[in-house]
C-alpha cells in the first residue's frame, strides 16, 4: 500500500524513532542471517568441534576440499546444471508462443486457460507424483535425467506462461499496429518488436525456472535410483556418516552452501541487466 508522502514520517515522529528502527532492523536481519551464520560456521568445523560453543575457531577446510575433490559431487552438480538448464530453455521456448497468444490475442476460453494454468502451477508436487511415476516408467525415463526434466516441466511451464502472459499483455497495441503497417508478419513482430521489449521478463522467468529446478528435491528423490542421474539436493540429502551415531553436519552445510552459490551468482549477474532492460523499455 502506498501512503501519501509524509504520513510515515508523521506516524513515527512521536516515538523514539531511532530506537524502534534499530530494533526492527535487527530482528529483520537476524531472522534470516542467523541460520546462515550457523551454516557457515558449521561448514568450517570437523567432528566434535561441531558442538563447541566457541564462536570463532580456526576454520578447517576439510569439508570443502573433500567435496571438491570428490568426482561424485561434480557429477551430481553437472546433473543439476544440465537438468535445470534444459528445463529453463525448453520452458522459455514453449512458453513464449503460448504466452504471446494468451497475452495479445483474444479468443474464446482465454481466461479459462489462464485460470487452469495458474491452478496447475499451484498444485502440490505430491499430488501428481504417483501419476507422473507411472508415465515416466512407461516412457522408459526412470532413473534418467530425462525423467526430472519431464517432471519439472509440469510445474515450470504453466508458471512461466502465466508470468510471461502479463509481460506480453502490457505491450501497447499501437506497437503491433505500427509493425503491421511497416510490413511485419506475425513472426517478425514477435522476434523483432516484442521479444526485445519483454527481454527482462524472459530473463526473470528463465532465472526463476532455473533456480526452482536447481533446488528441486522430491522429483529428484523419486525418479532416480543410482548415482548416474542424481542431482545436488538429493545427493546432499543422502549424505551420511560412516557411523550411524554421528550426523556429518559440517559436510552437509558445506555442500548446501556450495550448492546455493550458482543461483546466487546467476542472480547477481542478471540483476543489473534486468533492471537496465526494464527502464530502457519505458517510453512515454
Amino acid at each position: 500500500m502506498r501512503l501519501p508522502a509524509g504520513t510515515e514520517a508523521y506516524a513515527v515522529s512521536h516515538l523514539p524513532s531511532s530506537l524502534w528502527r534499530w530494533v526492527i532492523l535487527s530482528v529483520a536481519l537476524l531472522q534470516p542471517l542467523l541460520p546462515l551464520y550457523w551454516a557457515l560456521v558449521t561448514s568450517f568445523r570437523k567432528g566434535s568441534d561441531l558442538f563447541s560453543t566457541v564462536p570463532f575457531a580456526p576454520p578447517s577446510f576439510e569439508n570443502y576440499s573433500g567435496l571438491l575433490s570428490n568426482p561424485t559431487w561434480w557429477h551430481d552438480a553437472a546433473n543439476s546444471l544440465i537438468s535445470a538448464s534444459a528445463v529453463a530453455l525448453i520452458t522459455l521456448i514453449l512458453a513464449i508462443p503460448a504466452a504471446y497468444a494468451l497475452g495479445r490475442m483474444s479468443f474464446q476460453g482465454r481466461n479459462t486457460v489462464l485460470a487452469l494454468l495458474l491452478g496447475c502451477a499451484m498444485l502440490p508436487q505430491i499430488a501428481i507424483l504417483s501419476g507422473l511415476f507411472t508415465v515416466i516408467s512407461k516412457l522408459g525415463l526412470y532413473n534418467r535425467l530425462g525423467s526430472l526434466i519431464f517432471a519439472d516441466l509440469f510445474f515450470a511451464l504453466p508458471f512461466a506462461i502465466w508470468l510471461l502472459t502479463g509481460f506480453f499483455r502490457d505491450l501497447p497495441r499501437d506497437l503491433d499496429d505500427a509493425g503491421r503497417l511497416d510490413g511485419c508478419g506475425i513472426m517478425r513482430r514477435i522476434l523483432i518488436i516484442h521479444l526485445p521489449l519483454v527481454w527482462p521478463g524472459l530473463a526473470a522467468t528463465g532465472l526463476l525456472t532455473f533456480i526452482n529446478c536447481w533446488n528441486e528435491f522430491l522429483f529428484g528423490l523419486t525418479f532416480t535410483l543410482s548415482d548416474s542421474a542424481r542431482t545436488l539436493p538429493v545427493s546432499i540429502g543422502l549424505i551420511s556418516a560412516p557411523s550411524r551415531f554421528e550426523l556429518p553436519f559440517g559436510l552437509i552445510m558445506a555442500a548446501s552452501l556450495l550448492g546455493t552459490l550458482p543461483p546466487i551468482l546467476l542472480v547477481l549477474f542478471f540483476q543489473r541487466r534486468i533492471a537496465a532492460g526494464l527502464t530502457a523499455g519505458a517510453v512515454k
Partner: protein
Amino acid sequence: MTVSGFLTLKNVRKAYHGKEIVKDISLSVKQGEFVVFVGPSGCGKSTLLRMIAGLETLSSGIVSINGQEVTNVEASKRGVAMVFQSYALYPHMTVRRNMDFNLRIAKLPAHEIAERISEVARILRLEPYLECKPGTLSGGQRQRVAIGRAIVRKPKLFLFDEPLSNLDAELRNHMRIELATLHRKLGATTLYVTHDQVEAMTLADRIVVLRDGDIEQVGTPLELYHTPRTLFVAGFIGSASMNFIPLTLLKTDGNVSHLQLANSVTLTLPSPLPRLEGQIGTLGIRPEDIRITEGKDAMFQGTVLMVEHLGALTLLHVRFLEDITLKIQTTGSASPRVGEALSFSFLPDACHVFDQDGLAYRADTKH
C-alpha cells in the same frame, strides 16, 4: 464500380459483438485533401481510421484508395502511413532504425534508404538525434520521429489519430503549424482525427463531424461554422460553444418572423420561417455574435455572473431571463463587473433556428 475520389468509403460498417460502432459511412476524399474527423469520445473515429488503414476488418462496405478496392488488402500493402496518439515508436531501436524499419523490410537499396532518411531528417530537423533511442527524446521530438517514420514511406495517404494530444499547449501550436507546412510541401491526402477545435478549423480543407458512428455533417470549416446543419454540429464547432435558447415561433409576417424566447421576450428575425409557425424549437447564437449595446438600441438585459479574461478577448457569463446563462464574447477592454446589469443585442443575421428535431431551419427544406 465507379470511383470518384482518391479515397472512397462506401457504406462502411463496423460492429463489435453485435454493437454497431460505425454505421453506414460513405465519404469521398479528393487527392491532396486534408480531411479532419471530429466528434465526441467513443464515436468511432479511431475505429474508422483503423479500418481505412487496414488494421481492422470491415463488417461490411467498401474502401478504395486511388481507384483500387482495398477492403481486404493487408495494411502494409495499402500505401498508407499512420501516426498514432501514443507515437508507437519502437523503444529499442534508434531514431534512424525506427524510420528506416519499413524501408528495410521492403528491401529498398541501401543508398536510397540513406537518402530518404537524410531528407526527412532535414525536413523535420531530426539530424542530431538519428542515433538516439526514442526514450531520450522530448515529446515533440518523438512526435516528429513518428511523423518522419510515416513520410519516409512516401505514402499515398496519411492517417493521423490525435497526433498532438499528448503535447502541451505551446508545443501543440508549434507542431500544428509544422504539420500544415508539411502538408503544403508534400501535398499528400491526409485524414486527421482530433478533439481540438483549433486544429480542426485551421488544418482542415473539410471537416467530418461524427456522432455515434454516423456522419452528422461534412463541410469546410467555415460552412460548419456558419451553417451548421444540426444542433449537435452547432454546439460542437466553435471554441466557446454556441448559446441555445428555447423558442416558440409566433408568426411569420411577410419577410420577418416573430419569435418568443423562453416563453417571455420576443425577437424579430429578418427571415420568414413559415414551416415552423406555431412550433417550438431552439435559437442558437454564438458568443461572438452578441453585442453589448447601450441605451435604447439594446434588445435584452441580463446580469453578469462571471468574467473570464482570455487576453485579447473577454468571455462574459450572463444570466438572461429566468434560468438561461448566455456566453458573450467581447473585445472591449472596459469589462463589466460581476453583478452588474448588462444590455445587449443579438446580430439578427447570425441567429440560427433549429426545429424540434434539432435540424437547422432552411428556407428551401420542405417537410
